[in-house]
């Protein structure tokens, strides 16, 4: 996957990712319209499908609302690269099949607007603008299986068959 990097800071909370005033629905397409609304109201219009979010520490802190990774995925974010993720957001992203990469150096050095290429299976991040490559923290085997199947529900379905 290839796309442009959009930079966000530390402690980006789930209220910034999808404010509660839009949580009276769980329709992904509807939620996508308001992704990152309170961090940058124009972001959804500026970004293109396939782009990446590159953020600092503790991305997705706060509420357990799965609507947050769902909104980003439906908006077309192909993966999130961050120094670290908040726990529930991390779980939720894996469970709904939104790729997330914990890569502190990449998150620090990639600049807004850089062209980035990511190989999720290999955990490789390439900054095509600067020419630098990074390796993300690999998932434990069990989580990799969930990721490979596109989320927890598909994983459970394959297990119960």
């Amino acid at each position, binding site marked *: 996957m290839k796309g442009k990097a959009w930079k966000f800071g530390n402690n980006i909370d789930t209220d910034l990712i999808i404010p509660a005033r839009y949580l009276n629905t769980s329709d992904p397409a509807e939620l996508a319209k308001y992704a990152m609304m309170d961090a940058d109201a124009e972001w959804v219009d500026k970004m293109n499908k396939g782009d990446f979010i590159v953020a600092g520490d503790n991305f997705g802190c706060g509420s*357990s609302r799965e609507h947050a990774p769902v909104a980003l995925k439906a908006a077309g974010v192909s993966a999130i690269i961050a120094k670290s993720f908040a726990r529930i957001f991390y779980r939720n992203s894996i*469970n709904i099949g939104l790729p997330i990469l914990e890569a502190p150096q990449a998150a620090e050095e990639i600049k807004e607007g850089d062209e980035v290429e990511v190989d999720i299976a290999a955990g490789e991040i390439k900054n095509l603008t600067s020419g630098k490559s990074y390796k993300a923290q690999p998932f434990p085997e069990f989580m990799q299986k969930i990721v490979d199947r596109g989320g927890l529900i598909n994983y459970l379905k394959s297990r*119960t068959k």
Partner: protein
Amino acid sequence: MAQTISQKILAKHAGLKSVEPGQLISCKVDLVLGNDITAPPAIKEFEKIGVSKVFDKKKIYLVPDHFTPAKDIKSAEQVKMMRHFAQKYGIVNFFEIGCMGVEHALLPEMGAIKPGDLIIGADSHTCTYGALGAFSTGVGSTDMAAGMATGEVWFKVPEQLKFVYHGKLPKWVEAKDLILYTIGQIGVDGARYMSMEFTGPAIDTLSVEGRLTMANMAIEAGGKNGIFAVDAKTEAYLKKVKAGKGLVYRSDADAEYKEIYEWDISKIEPQVSFPHLPSNTKPVSQCGSVKIDQSVIGSCTNGRIEDMRVAAKILKGKKVNKAVRLIILPATQKIELQMMKEGLTEIFIKAGAAVSTPTCGPCLGGHMGILAEGERSIATTNRNFVGRMGHPKSEVYLSNVAVAAASAVAGRIVSPAAL
């Protein structure tokens, strides 16, 4: 292997003798919880799994509390979906308006939580139940769906943190201040992925309600769970709510902690978290002159009867400042009734406060007290993120109950001692 309370509960539910931090385990759960925001997507996911029944009809709790009584048509549809799901699968614990309450106040009060239980809830403040010696943590809707279908959940065993509080709580300092102080010290990711065990002489003096307030905000430091050892106060509480004794665990003396924090709290003041992070704390005397438009007393953090008594003590015979809207939200029907019996509701209404039916309401910017652009609210709630209570350019200041009540009278953030 020496273990903490949290590790012992996880090991028990994974069918193991012991567990180590970092270990991936699959646990049986005692209770699965969801609300009107998180349950509807969980229900959609549940239906995709292809099972014909839930793992246990009595162990699933569905509490429509966030946007209820339904604030708009879409919210009403969400609750309708929960109601139908409960009927379809024979789920016993669905709470309609009239018997519902804010989930994390309701469940302990009705005796649904026992020590040693392992609980998952699709709400980040599910960590509240650690106050009763349970391992309890927030998850998302898909985990809730999987939990409802299988009765199991996967965990990475968290690293352990211990917090020891020494000294006597000064006047007007509440359990809320201990947790705000803690978050101020370690930051909003200071306990990321970790267990927070709260101990020490000051903790022993706290009521169970105060401990619920502290455990509630473990998530605000990034914690996976917050936990307290069971003592005589816990036992008396469990007896009162007819919860059963459960399984009581103690942390081994030589259990390993990633970090141990020790604080003397005898000199701390009531704490105020400035916008826009709970960790942005200041002692109340150093807040300067912050004028407020609204004060909110309630939520899963501070909406219990003891909180209402503190508020009444301050508001009795006083008037809410003309420039301030004071909104008081008892967290459950039972609390609301008790307020009436004790005459607290009358005190609030005479003071010029609006008393609401139980709801999460303004805490998450849902309804019942949304802020306009540029407005400020002090609140006994748990989060002060950008836009949390309304307009992205509004501000929320977090405090204990006494400060929120006193500030409503003064029109600006003050210590109750200043009234």
